[in-house]
């Protein structure tokens, strides 16, 4: 039986680069919000937020080196979240 935890971690330097990337994306999303692009503002903000979220997930939350169980269960959650969002809009859109 495995008692100790497997050691896998990111070096401080990697984590710091990740932080810089996240701060840069924050800067970008704030600056873009001052430019009026109509409908695209929403999508750009959501794409940048999702990118930041993915970075946090992969590096800070270690999803990058997790096994299949966690990866697929996470994707499953996002899939059901997608169903919740799309079906709600389907309903509201055709009322």
């Amino acid at each position, binding site marked *: *039986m*495995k*008692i*100790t*935890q497997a*050691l*896998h*971690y*990111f*070096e*401080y330097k990697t*984590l*710091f680069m*990740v*932080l810089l990337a*996240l*701060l840069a994306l*924050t800067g970008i*999303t*704030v600056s873009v*919000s001052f430019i009026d692009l109509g409908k695209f*503002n*929403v999508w750009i*903000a*959501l794409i*940048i*937020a999702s990118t*930041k*979220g993915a970075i*946090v*997930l992969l*590096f*800070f*939350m270690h999803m990058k080196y997790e096994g299949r*169980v*966690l990866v697929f*269960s*996470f994707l499953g*959650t*996002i899939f*059901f*979240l997608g169903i*919740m*969002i799309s079906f*709600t*809009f389907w309903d*509201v859109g055709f009322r």
Partner: protein
Amino acid sequence: MSSHSDESGKKLGMWLFLYTEIILFGGLFVLYAVYFVRYASDFIEGGKELNILFGVVNTIILLISSFSVAAAITAIQKKEKKMAVTGLATGLLCGLVFLVNKYFEWSHKIDSGIFPNSEKLVDGPVGQNIFFGLYYVITGLHGIHIIIGMALLFISLVFVQTGKITHERFSLAENSGLYWHLVDLIWIFIFPLFYLVI
């Protein structure tokens, strides 16, 4: 060691809980999205009332705190106790600063008559009432998560200090870190929705 512990099982359990959190906040975001489509101009007017500076500063604070907590988890595995304690303490401090900011932000809003069931909102445009209702519910629920996350980080900090969390057994610290990162992740979506007024 006589007692067996299933470290990867503990992590899976934590993730299952985090999935429910994702659906919880996901549901609130759906609510936001549907009302945004219906009352777009009111939401945009409402968003202009929020101070973007508070949002940006709190985003930066949470990102830094996530980084230091992630660094602390690395430090625990590298047996660098001092670094681990510093990382967790920095994360805690950032959480506190976040809450102080939130306090000033909310007080300012309440002073200017914007709070649930206030006259200004009830008699004003319906869309703005909904916008600020969602603002208080979502940021409030997120704030509660910050407080819980800080409690978990504090417990981890104490256990690292007393040697209860080591490089061989650090599930508690790791799971507390996961919770903290999720709270950061949720803020990453709250920030553009309310402050950049999509």
